[in-house]
C-alpha cells in the first residue's frame, strides 16, 4: 500500500482562522484526531491537499452544562468524554458508549465531533446521542446553524456538511428525573472492536407509564438511525417485560441491515441481534429510570 500522499498542514489557533482556511483553501479538510481520516487518505478513500488541524483551537474543546443543556465542543476527545464527571453524572450512557470505541490510544486522539462527522453507520457515540436528542452546531464563515443529529447523517460515511463548514458543538438537554438510558454493543471480541451492531434506548417514566421513549441502532442501516416506529409503541404505555419484549421483537422488521455478501455480519444475524440488543437496552434503561425517580 502506498504511503499517505503529501499534504500541507495548517494549524490555526482560533475557530475563526480555521473557518477562513477551510473556505479559502481548495481541497482542504479539517483534521482532529485523525484516527479515521489518515486511514482514509492512505487507502485513497478521500483526498486532501490541505489539512486544517483543529487541535490548537482550544475553544472547540470543552464539556459544560449551560441552562439545562449539556454542551460538548467538537474536538473534545473520547477519553475526555469517558472521564468527564459531568457526563458520567448526567449522561452516563454517552460515557459508556465512548469507552467502547477502539483502544485507549485511539480514544486519546479521536474526538466526538470526528466520530460523528465520519458518519460510520456503526459509530458508537451516535446511538446514545440520538436517543439523548442531540443537536449539532455547524459553523462556517457565513455564520452558524443547527440541525438534529439525525439530519447530519446523510449516508454511509457521509455527513451533511458543505465545503467550508465545520461541526463545532454537540448539545442535548439534561435528562429529567425518572429517565434512564442504556447502550449495548455486539463486537467480534471484547476489546478494541468495531460494532457488528449497537443499540441505545432512552426511557422517561411517569410512575409505571412510559412518558417518553427514544431508541436507536448503529450498523443496522446506511446511517445510525432512530427507530420512530418502535418509539411509538412505547410512548404512553404501561411498561412491563412483555411490552419490552414486543417492541424488541418488532425491531427485526424495522432495521435495514446491509445485504452485502462480505458484510461483517449477515443481514439475518443483525436483524436477530437487533431484537436481543434492544431488549437488553430497554431493560437496562427501564431499571435505571426506576432508580432515578429522585
Amino acid at each position, binding site marked *: *500500500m*502506498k*504511503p499517505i500522499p503529501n499534504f500541507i498542514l495548517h494549524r490555526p489557533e482560533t475557530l475563526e482562522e480555521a473557518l477562513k482556511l477551510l473556505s479559502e483553501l481548495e481541497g482542504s479538510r479539517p483534521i482532529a484526531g485523525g484516527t479515521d481520516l489518515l486511514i482514509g487518505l492512505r487507502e485513497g478513500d478521500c483526498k486532501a491537499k490541505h489539512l486544517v488541524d483543529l487541535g490548537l483551537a482550544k475553544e472547540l474543546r470543552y464539556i459544560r452544562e449551560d441552562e439545562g443543556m449539556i454542551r460538548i465542543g467538537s474536538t473534545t476527545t473520547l477519553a475526555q468524554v469517558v472521564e468527564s464527571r459531568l457526563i458520567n453524572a448526567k449522561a452516563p450512557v454517552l460515557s459508556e458508549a465512548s469507552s467502547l470505541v477502539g483502544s485507549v490510544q485511539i480514544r486519546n486522539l479521536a474526538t466526538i465531533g470526528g466520530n460523528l462527522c465520519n458518519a460510520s453507520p456503526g459509530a458508537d457515540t451516535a446511538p446514545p446521542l440520538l436517543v439523548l436528542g442531540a443537536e449539532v452546531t455547524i459553523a462556517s464563515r457565513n455564520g452558524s446553524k443547527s440541525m438534529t443529529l439525525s439530519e447530519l447523517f446523510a449516508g454511509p460515511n457521509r455527513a451533511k456538511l458543505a465545503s467550508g463548514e465545520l461541526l463545532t458543538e454537540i448539545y442535548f438537554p439534561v435528562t429529567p428525573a425518572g429517565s434512564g438510558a442504556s447502550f449495548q454493543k*455486539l463486537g*467480534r*471480541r*471484547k*476489546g*478494541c*472492536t*468495531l460494532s*457488528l451492531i449497537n443499540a441505545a434506548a432512552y426511557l422517561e417514566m411517569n410512575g409505571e407509564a412510559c412518558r417518553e421513549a427514544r431508541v436507536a441502532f448503529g450498523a443496522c442501516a446506511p446511517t445510525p438511525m432512530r427507530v420512530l416506529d418502535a418509539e411509538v409503541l412505547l410512548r404512553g404505555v404501561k411498561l412491563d417485560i412483555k411490552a419490552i419484549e414486543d417492541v424488541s421483537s418488532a425491531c427485526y422488521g424495522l432495521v435495514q441491515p446491509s445485504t452485502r455478501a*462480505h458484510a*461483517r*455480519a*449477515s443481514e439475518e*444475524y443483525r436483524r*436477530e*441481534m437487533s431484537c*436481543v440488543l434492544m431488549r437488553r437496552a430497554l431493560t437496562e434503561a427501564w431499571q435505571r429510570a426506576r432508580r432515578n425517580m429522585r
Partner: protein
Amino acid sequence: MEYDNILENLLGRSQFLVVGKSVVRADALDKALGRAKFTADYIQKGTIVVKVVRSTQPHARIKRLDVDGALRTPGVHAVLTASDVPGLNQIGYAIPDQPFLNVEKVHYIGDPIALVCADDEWSAMEGVDAVVIDYDPLPANFTIDETLKKDAIHIHESGNVALTSRIRKGDVEKGFSEAEMVVEETYETPFQEHMYIEPDAALAIPEGREKVTVIGAMQSPFLVREKVAHVLGWSLNQVRVIQAFTGGAFGGKDDTGPLVCAKAVLAAVKLGRPAALVFDREEVAAYTPKRFPARIRYRFGADSDGVFKAAEVDITLDCGAYANRAPFWLWRQTVHAAGPYEVPSIHVDGRAVYTNKVFGGSFRGFGDLAMHFAVETQIDRLAAKLGMDPIDVRLKNVLKVGKRTTSDQLLDHSVGIEKCIRGVVEASDWSHRRESRRIGVKVRGVGIGCAHHGISTSRGAPDWSAASLILNEDGTLTYRTTICELGQGTPFGHAKIVSEILGAPIDSIRIEIPDTDTMPNARPTHGSRGLTLGGTAAADAALKLRQHMVKVAAGLLECDEGSIEMRDGRAYRKEDPSTGIEFKELAQELYVRGVSPAAYGFFVPPRRFFDPNTGLGVSYPAYTFAATVAEVEVDVETGQVEVVKIWPAMDVGKAIDPLMIEGQIQGAISQGIGFALMEDLRLENGKVLNPNFTDYVVPSSLDTPEVAETIIVEEPYKHSAFGAKGVGEPAIISIVPAITNAIYHATGISFNTVPITAERLYTVLKRSEQ
C-alpha cells in the same frame, strides 16, 4: 552423553543455582523501553527502497512483462526480474516448485514477479504501478475438491498432488471388528495468519567484492544464507546473515525470512548500494504463508469400556500455490494421528494438494493443532456415545512408558501426559464443574484437550545444534547461538544453562545476536527444538569451557580438579570455600597459560528413522505433552463465547525457567482462542479480503481469560540439557480442543470446523431449537 543428570554426575551439586527459577530476561528492559533494535531500526537514510511487483491473477501465464514505464518513473533506479537473478531462480524448500521471481506463470494472487528499487517508498510504489504485465488467464482451482477433479488444470507440471504420506500399523479391519462403538467425522481447519507485530523486513549491505551482509527478521539464519547464496550463485561464506531481534514469528518467518532477505540482497548486489525491503501489513496478511488448511476424515473405534481399538485417518492438506513445508507438515500430522494415546491398529493416508491461493507454511503447532482438534473432538463424541466421562476415556488409552505411538515408536521414558491430565482434573475441580450450569442466558461448560508434539525437525531429517562461548579477560562471558530470539526467550534459556554449568552469574553472560560468519549452524528455531537441541549444544560448550577453567583453577589452588567447585563467578576448593579465585583472575590465567578460553558446543540427538512404506519408526527424539481444561460461558441469545478460565499443564522434561513457560502458555492461550473463536481469513477467487487488523480479528487483552497456575510436570528427556523439552508449540495444541469441547459440553453442539464465531454458534443453536 546423558545430559539430564549432569547436575549430580558432573557438577557434583544436588541443587540448581538458576535453572528452574524464574529470572527476569536480559532483554526485557530494552524491549520494554523501546531500545531493542529490530531490523527496520538499522536502515539508514539513502538506503534503496525495494518493493515487490505481484501477480493480480490467481493462475495465469505471463504474456508480456514491460518494465520500461517503471524505469522512467522518477526516483526508480532499477526493476529486477527473473533474468537478473545470477544464480538459481528456484527457492522451494522441500520441492523445487517455487520460482524466486516468476517469469512464465503465476500461481496465486501475490506471486512475486519483479522488484522495483527506488529512492523512497512513494517512488517505488509509483514504479510498481507502472510495470505492465499482460496475462493469459488460466482456470484456477481454489478448493481441495476442485483441484482433485480428474480434468482439473495442473497448477504445477507434476500435477496437483504435491506428495503423499502414510502409516500402516496393525490390523485395522480386525480392530474395527472388535470395536463396539465407531465415531466417524470429517474435520476442516482453516488458514490462520500469524499477525506477528513486526512485519517482515530485511536490510542488505554489499561489502567490497562479492560479499554481502543481510540483517533481517528470520528464524533460521543458515537457511537464509543457503537460499541467498543459491539466488546469487555464490558460496556460503560470501553471505553473512545477522538476525536482528525479531518481533514475533510463530513459524511464519521461518518461511518468509529467506524469501524477503534474498530480495533485499539481490537489489543491494545489483545496485552496489544498501537496500531494504520492509513489508506492510497488507502484504504480510495477504501474501505470506499461513497455517495450512486441512481436511481430516477420522474413523475411530473403541470397545464398550472405551479402549481404543482402531483408527482410520485420511488427511488432505491444502498447500496453496507451493508445497513449501507441506512434506514436513503432513508427515508430522501423519505420525501424530492417534493423539497422545495408544491405538493398536491405525492406518493413515495423507496427501498435500496445490490450489491457486496464498500458500501454507509453518505455524506454531505445525499440523498437530489440526490433528489434535480432530482427535480430541472424536474422543469427546465417543465418550458421549458411551456415556463415559471424557477424562476416563482418555486415561484408559493415554500414552505411558512402554506404550507405542502412531508410528509404533516405543516410549521408554519422559512420558508425562497422564500426570498432566490428573493435574488439571484436580486443579479445575473437574467433576464439580461438569455439572451443567445456566445463569440466565449464559450457559457454562468445561472441556479438556490433550496434546503431544515431537521435538525436532520432521521426517527424520538429520538434526544437530551448535553454540559458542567465550570467556573474556574480565571474567565475563559472550554466548552466541543461531537459535533466534523471536520474543520467546530461548537464547536466554541457553544462557541459564551456561550459568548453571559454569557457576557464572547470569548477568555476566551476554547473548550476542546470531551471525552466520561467527558460528557454526545451530539449525532452525522451529519444531520446538531451540531449547532441547540448542540448549544442549550450549551445555556442551559450557562443559568444555568448564574443563579448561577447572584445570587452571586446580593448578592455581594446588588441588586436584575433582575438588574444584565453581559458583557466583568464583572457583574454589570444595572443602575450603574461603580459598578461591575470581573468574576475572581465572580468565586471565587461561589466556596467559595458553588454555583456550573459548569453546564451541555441538549436539546431535539419537538417530531417527522411518520406513517409507509403512511410515513406522522412531519419529522424534522426544515428545512434550500437554493437557488443558477450559471453562467457557456461552451467551445463548447472541452466540458469543467467553473463555472464562484455563487450567494448563505441561510435561516439559525440566523447567529451565517457569516464568518463560508461563509466558509461552499465556500467549498460546490467546492465539488458541483466536483460532477457535475468531480468526477467519476470507478469500474470494483467491483474493484475501481482510488482510488487516480491522477485519482479521485476533483476541485483545480483554479476551484473555484468567489462567490458573501452570502445572509443570517434569519427566526429563535423558539426552537434553537437564532433561528439558520444548514448550512453545505444544502450548497451543491442547488449548483449541479444550475450548471446543467446553462449548460442546455447554451447548451439546460439537463443531467440526473453527472458528466458532458468535454468528455461527447462534445460527446452529437456533437451528437445533427448531
